[in-house]
C-alpha cells in the first residue's frame, strides 16, 4: 500500500521540487568515458548536477546520502526503446509504435502519445534506467516518424525532447516498407527529402501518395540539420549508402542505429563523424545483412574513433533496457578474450550513459554527472556493470523516485505462496 501511495502522490504532485543532495563516500562513475572514482562525492541542486568527483565540498544544508561501499553513477540512457509507447509485445491493443494504416509517416510525432505510467517503464526505472530514446517503428513507408527522448520519472511529463530525431529504415526492413527493395527505398527517401526542401513536390492526401505535405514539413528540419536523421542500417554497404546521403544533403545530421557490420567500415564512419547507437552484442548472422556480426563490433568501431552507444536494438531478449548494463559489462569481458576487441570500464559505461545522449546532441543535458547536466543519479549496491548488482535508489531531475516496482509487489505477495486467513488478493 505504501509504495503505491507514494507513486500516486508522485504522479499527482506535478513537478516535484528538487532538493540539494550530496552523495558521499561511494565509487563515482560520471559516464563521460572516465574511469570510476573511489570515495567520490556527487552534489546535485535544483535538479542539476553541481559537481562530481573527489574534493567536492558538501554544501551547507544539503541532504547527505551516505554511499559508502556503494556506487553512485549517472543513470542509464537507453539508446533505442519502445518505453511509454507500448505496454507489452504481443499486446497489440497497446501498440503505439507503428505508423501502419496512417496516411502519414515522417510527420508522426510520438511525443503526443507517450504513457509513462505503464508497468514496464516503472520496472526499468527501478533497475537504474533514467532516460530513453523512444523510436517509432516504420509502417507504411520506411520513415518511422519523429521519435522522442524521455525520462522515466514517476510523473506524467515524460518528454525530455520531443521530435528529437526522424527515424528511417535503410536496410532489409526498408524493403518491406519502402517500396519492395533497397533501391526503391532510396528513391523514396530522396524524393521525400527533396520535397522537404521544395514543398511544391509534396502532395495532399491523394491515393497512393507516399509523402504528404505534412511529412515533407516534418523533414525540413532534417535536411536543414536541425533534427538528426536516425538511420537503421546493419549491412556495411547500407551504412555506406547512408553516409553517401550527406554528399547530396550536406547539412544532414546522420546517426546510425544497429550497424552490426559497422566494423567493416569503421574508419569511414569515423571520418564522417557519424555517431552510432549500435546493436550491443549481435554476433549471429540473424539475416543476410548481418553476416559479419561479431561481439567485437562495438570495440572495433570505438577503436577506429567512432562515438558508439549501445542499445537493445536487435536484442531478442525482451528487450529490457536494464540489460544494457549487463551488455556493457560483457563488452569489458571481451578485453580478456584472445583476438577480440572490447572496451575498458569507463568506455563501456559511457556507451549506456553519455554516448546515446551525444548521438542525439543531448550530451550537454543528460547522460553524465558533469556539472550542469540534469541530475539523473543511481546509487547501486555494487559495480553497475556486474550482473549481480542492483539499483538501490534512483533520482531523476534531482527527484528521488519511488522505491521498488510492480515486480517487488508481486514478489512480496508471493514470498509465501500459500494463502493465509484471506486470499492473496487481500494481501496488499
Amino acid at each position, binding site marked *: 500500500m505504501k509504495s503505491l501511495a507514494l507513486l500516486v502522490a508522485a504522479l499527482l504532485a506535478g513537478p516535484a521540487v528538487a532538493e540539494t543532495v550530496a552523495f558521499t563516500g561511494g565509487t563515482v562513475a560520471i559516464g563521460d568515458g572516465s574511469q570510476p572514482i573511489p570515495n567520490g562525492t556527487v552534489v546535485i541542486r535544483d535538479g542539476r548536477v553541481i559537481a562530481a568527483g573527489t574534493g567536492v565540498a558538501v554544501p551547507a544544508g544539503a541532504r547527505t546520502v551516505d554511499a559508502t561501499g556503494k556506487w553512485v553513477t549517472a543513470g542509464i540512457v537507453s539508446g533505442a526503446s519502445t518505453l511509454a509507447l507500448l505496454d*507489452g509485445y504481443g499486446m497489440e491493443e497497446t501498440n503505439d509504435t507503428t505508423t501502419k494504416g496512417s496516411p502519414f509517416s515522417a510527420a508522426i510525432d510520438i511525443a503526443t502519445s507517450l504513457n509513462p505510467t505503464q508497468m514496464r517503464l516503472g520496472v526499468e526505472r527501478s533497475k537504474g534506467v533514467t532516460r530513453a530514446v523512444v523510436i517509432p517503428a516504420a509502417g507504411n513507408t520506411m520513415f518511422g516518424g519523429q521519435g522522442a527522448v524521455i525520462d522515466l520519472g514517476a510523473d506524467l511529463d515524460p518528454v525530455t525532447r520531443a521530435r528529437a530525431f526522424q527515424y528511417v529504415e535503410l536496410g532489409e526492413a526498408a524493403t518491406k516498407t519502402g517500396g519492395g527493395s533497397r533501391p526503391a527505398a532510396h528513391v523514396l527517401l530522396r524524393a521525400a527529402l527533396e520535397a522537404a526542401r521544395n514543398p511544391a513536390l509534396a502532395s495532399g492526401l491523394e491515393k497512393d501518395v507516399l509523402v504528404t505535405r505534412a511529412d515533407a514539413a516534418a523533414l525540413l528540419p532534417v535536411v536543414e540539420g536541425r533534427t538528426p536523421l536516425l538511420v537503421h542500417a546493419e549491412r556495411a554497404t547500407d551504412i555506406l549508402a547512408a553516409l553517401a546521403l550527406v554528399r547530396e544533403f550536406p547539412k544532414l545530421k546522420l546517426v546510425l542505429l544497429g550497424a552490426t557490420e559497422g566494423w567493416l567500415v569503421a574508419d569511414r564512419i569515423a571520418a564522417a563523424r557519424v555517431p552510432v547507437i549500435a546493436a550491443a552484442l549481435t554476433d549471429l548472422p*540473424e539475416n543476410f545483412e548481418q553476416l559479419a556480426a561479431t*561481439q567485437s563490433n562495438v570495440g572495433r568501431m570505438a577503436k577506429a574513433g567512432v562515438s558508439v552507444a549501445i542499445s537493445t536494438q536487435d536484442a531478442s531478449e525482451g528487450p529490457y533496457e536494464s540489460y544494457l*548494463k549487463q551488455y556493457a559489462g560483457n563488452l569489458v*569481458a571481451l578485453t*580478456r578474450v584472445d583476438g577480440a576487441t572490447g572496451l575498458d570500464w569507463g568506455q563501456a559505461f559511457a556507451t549506456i550513459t553519455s554516448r546515446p545522449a551525444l548521438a542525439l546532441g543531448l550530451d550537454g543535458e543528460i547522460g553524465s554527472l558533469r556539472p550542469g547536466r540534469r541530475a539523473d543519479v543511481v546509487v547501486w549496491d555494487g559495480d553497475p556493470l556486474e550482473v549481480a548488482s542492483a539499483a538501490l535508489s534512483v533520482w531523476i531531475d534531482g527527484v528521488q523516485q519511488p522505491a521498488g516496482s510492480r515486480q517487488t509487489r*508481486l514478489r512480496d505477495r508471493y*514470498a509465501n*505462496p500459500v494463502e493465509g486467513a484471506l486470499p492473496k488478493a487481500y494481501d496488499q
Partner: protein
Amino acid sequence: MASIKKLAALALLGLAACSAQSGAKPKSASSGPKIAEPWTGDPYPSTYHAYPGVPTLVTDVTILDGEGARIDDGQILFADGKVVALGQSVPAPAGATVIDGKGKWVTPGIIDIHSHLGDYPSPGVKALSDGNEATAPTTPDVWAEHSIWPQDPGFSRALANGGVTTLQILPGSANLMGGRSAVIKNVYSRTVQGMKFPGAAYGLKMACGENPKRVYGGKGREPSTRMGNIAVDRATWAKAVEYRRKWDKYEKDGGEAPARDIGMDTLAGVLAGKILVHNHCYRADEMAIVLDMAKEFGYHVASFQHSVEAYKIPDLLKAADTCASVWADWYGFKMESYDGIPENLALLERSGACATIHSDDPNGIQHLNQEIAKARASGLRMGIDIPREVAWKWASYNPAKALGIADRTGSLKPGKMADVVLWNGDPFSSYTRPEKVWIDGALLYDMHDPKRRPVSDFELGQIGEGDVK
C-alpha cells in the same frame, strides 16, 4: 571408444525391443512375427561419437560439481571421455595434460533445456523457418530432429560464448502438441543423427495459453480460447488412451496388429512413460489445469517451460515432481508474461521445487551463466541466500534431470561424461567467459586456439568466417 558407445546404444535399443516382445505371448498363429509397441525404440538412432581427448588435469581451480558441492583450490581429472576424479588433490596419470586453473573456475557444461537452434536457425529466413508445423493444433507426429539444420551457426556461439554442451531442441509453441523434441550434444556433425544424445528419451512439446489460441483462433477454428485449448488437448489424449489400449491388447492377446498412427505413437509413448512432456505454460492457473489434465489421462509433466508464474505455485510443482524451466528475469513481453519477477528461481529453490534456467533464444543461450547469477542475486536481495554451487544446479543438473539424462551428464561425478567448462573467472560475473569447453572429454573450444573454434558450413567462405564472435 566411439564404436563401443555406439554398440552399447544399439544394444539398449535392442533390449528394449526384445523385452517388449518377450513380454507378449502371441495367441494367434496367423499374426506372424510380433510387432513391438511402436513408441519404443528410435528409427533415427544416434550416430554421435565422442571425439578423441587427452587425459586432462586442471589444478588449483574453483570447482562447482553441479550437484551442490564446491571445491576451492581443487583439482579435477578427466580421461577417456569421462570424469575420473575431483578433490583437493587428484593423482594424475603420466602424460596427462595439466592446466593451471589459478583464478579460474570449472563447472559442468551448461544444458539448455529449451532451444530452437537448428529448427529456427540463423539466418532467420523463411526458407529455414522449420520450428512450427502450424497447420493443425495438434501435431504429435512431427519430430524436431527432422527440421534441425546441423549447420546453424548458433551452435558455435552457444559453445564458445556460452559453454553449452547439451541442448534440447523443441518444436515451437504454435500448437497444443507441437511434436517431439530432440536432445543433442553441442558438437557439429554432418547429420542430426550425429548430434543426437545417445539413448536420451524423446520429449513431447506441448503448449498452453496465448499462442495456440491466437494461431488457430486466427484461422477461425478451434482452439480460439483457453477452454478450447484444453478441450482439444483432452479429446486428443482420449484418443491416445484408446490407441494405447489397442496396442496393449495386441501385445497381450495377439491377432491383427493395430494400424499405425505416427502422432498417436508419440502420445502413447507419453502415456507409457517413455516420452517426457515439456509443456510451454506461463501462468500459474494454467499450469494447475495442466497438472490435473495429466492426472486425468495418466501421464507425467516432466517440465513446464517459460513458467514465469511458477513462483505462485511451487507447492503444486513440487507435489507433481515437475520442473519449472524459466528465464532469469523476462517479463511483460506478452500478456501471459506480465507477472514475471526476477526472484522466480530463488523462490522455487527455497520451496524445494525443481527449477532450471533456459534460453529459448540464440542470444540468451550465450550467457546462461550470467542469467543464473542474476537470479541468485535477486534471491539474495530478498534474503534467500543460495550458494553458487547450489545455483549451478539450475544450469546443468536440474535440466539433465528433467531430460532424463542426469545419470550420464549434468554434474562432475566420476564416471559421468566429461562435459566440462573452464571459465576465466567466476562464472557468476559479467566479466567472465568460457576459456575451454570439453564435450565427452574432447576439447572443442579453446579461447587461445583459433583452430578450436567451430565454423559451420554456412559461414565458411563468407564474410566474417573464423572471426571471434
